[in-house]
């Protein structure tokens, strides 16, 4: 597939003056002070390519240069050095609802915003019904936008944005707004756009979404490419560097690299365990091996979001042997029962080792993350059953 965005040795520096001089008065009064500039290198020698039809994630902490990068790709900021080539029509906006004006009616805003996004009047006319229908706001179109709730504005903005006929979309934290329902609607639409061969460049802090949707992720740190590759490996690297464990390697494997966790999933809907409905779930683990082994041991460690170890065990300790490891694909499961966890985020570390626990075939920190919803009135780590008498 051909490259639609090629970035070569891109750098960008912001000059921040020590003395603020942005009026004629400042210049007159500070005439004899030489101003010094403090240089902030936001992007430092970036090079990467984005292929047509790719869902390209950008990951990094605040201030790592993600938004500046998007702005340069969009043509809003000029590159300082290096080059950016964009081969197809780009939707030159970073946010939903650019140009929205509260004083205009919703309908006028549709025309304004859609024109800014590069749609012609005719296209807007043809797509108007679709936009209004998608936004579910048909009875409000004549009202001024300032009377809309922020949720309604986002719905309208998104409905317009997805009608844009661009080939490349830039989305900067677009999904930080909107409820879960809206977010899933967005992602459904993204999948559709992807099927149509559109390229999506997407900045987010939501690791789960990045992992789920990205084909490739660029991980930026202080303007430097820290990692670039497939979603899982980059997110894992990011997590390992930002985790409370601070482990350098996430997937510790045996030297031959011969056993790996292919897929770790559960029967939970959107990884959420609602204790009021059920206190158990099943974790499915797909393992690929390059050899046969009769008595492997599967183990896990459960951590809460603060990094506290809640429980650890394995199939040997539990006296609960698992089936033999075959060359090729294997499937194991762990059923967790009667979990008395409190509301929060939990991580499972998984490992598969030999029968003596002598060496791990494969070990993955925070291999699975899930959320617990529990309405119990209390604090701590687990819910203790109690009777007050």
């Amino acid at each position, binding site marked *: 597939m051909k490259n639609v965005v090629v970035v070569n040795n891109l750098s960008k520096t912001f000059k921040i003056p020590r003395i603020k001089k942005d009026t004629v008065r400042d210049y007159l009064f500070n005439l004899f002070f030489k101003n010094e500039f403090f240089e902030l290198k936001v992007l430092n020698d970036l090079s990467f390519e984005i292929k047509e039809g790719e869902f390209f994630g950008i990951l990094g902490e605040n201030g790592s240069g993600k938004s500046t990068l998007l702005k340069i790709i969009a043509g809003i900021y000029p590159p300082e050095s290096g080059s950016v080539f964009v081969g197809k029509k780009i939707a030159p906006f970073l946010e939903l609802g*650019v140009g929205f*004006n509260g004083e205009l009616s919703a309908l006028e805003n549709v025309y304004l915003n859609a024109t*800014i996004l590069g749609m012609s009047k005719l296209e807007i006319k043809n797509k108007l019904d679709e936009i209004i229908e998608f936004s579910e706001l048909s009875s409000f179109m004549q009202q001024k936008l300032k009377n809309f709730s922020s949720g309604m504005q986002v719905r309208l903005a998104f409905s317009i944005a997805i009608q844009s006929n661009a080939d490349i979309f830039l989305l900067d934290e677009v999904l930080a707004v909107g409820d879960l329902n809206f977010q899933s609607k967005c992602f459904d639409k993204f999948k559709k756009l992807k099927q149509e061969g559109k390229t999506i460049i997407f900045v987010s802090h939501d690791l789960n979404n990045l992992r789920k949707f990205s084909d490739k992720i660029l991980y930026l740190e202080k303007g430097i490419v820290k990692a670039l590759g497939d979603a899982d490996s980059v997110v894992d690297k990011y997590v390992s560097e930002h985790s409370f464990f601070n482990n350098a390697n996430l997937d510790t494997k045996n030297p031959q690299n011969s056993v790996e966790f292919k897929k770790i999933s559960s029967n939970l809907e959107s990884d959420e365990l609602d204790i009021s409905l059920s206190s158990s779930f099943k974790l499915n683990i797909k393992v690929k091996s390059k050899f046969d082994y009769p008595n492997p041991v599967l183990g896990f460690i459960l951590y809460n979001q603060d990094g506290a170890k809640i429980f650890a065990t394995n199939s040997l300790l539990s006296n609960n042997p698992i089936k033999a490891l075959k060359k090729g694909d294997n499937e194991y499961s762990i059923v967790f029962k009667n979990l008395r966890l409190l509301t929060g985020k939990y991580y499972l570390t998984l490992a598969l080792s030999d029968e003596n626990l002598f060496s791990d075939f494969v070990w993955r920190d925070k291999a699975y993350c899930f959320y617990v919803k529990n309405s119990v009135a209390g604090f701590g780590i687990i819910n203790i059953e109690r009777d007050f008498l």
Partner: protein
Amino acid sequence: MILTQKKINYELLWRFIKTDFKLRYYGSFLGFFWALLKPLFIFAVLYLVFTVFINWNILNYQLYLLLGIIIWNFFAEATINGINSLQNKSGLLKKVYFPRIFVVISSTTTSLLVFLLNILVFFLFYIFSDLSFSLVVFFFLPYAIILYFLALSISLSLSILQVYFKDLIQIWEILLQAFFYLTPIIYPISLVPEAYRHFLFLNPLTGIIQYFRLIIIEHKIPSVLGTFYLFLFVFLFFLISYYIFNKYSKKIIELL
């Protein structure tokens, strides 16, 4: 149907102009009513001062004065709004790419529309005056274009400077105040002593206002040479401003 980028750009510019117009004079009829009334009001006050209090006796003074005020009003509003336009649209400019010049053009063009409507109002007065009508009056159109490009050129270059010097607009407003009196708007240029007249003509607005009056009120066609100088000046100024704007408009977005 495949539309070229150019056509979409024109549609965007047109959309900007419409939106600007709507927002500036929103509340539709009443907002617009005030825009038309403003030069008439200034006219009424000045007319009272100079014909009743001071008792000037100048032929066709009311039309003479009103035309000057309408032209000046356009120039002042177009440049003030134009210089502020990049700053006012910073939110948009930082979030989406489109040719940056549209912001300035739409701002000055909105003022131009108000100007043309003011000229229509002027012609209403004209009909009720004792002046006869002649087709020569339509000769004012090329001078209106020169006037527009003068305002646009100032807006283009100063809107860039405004980003670097945030108090430029205050300075500009003071200058406008001064030039309101240094341009023959209230007084006919014949009242100015001969020795100073040349200095007044260094201001291109003097020439434009005088030519407008010559055409519309006196039904005379201005001198070709004078028009040529005026055109040349505004044309060169526009080229320079356009060059400055294109050169800096990308760089200044991060300073907005």
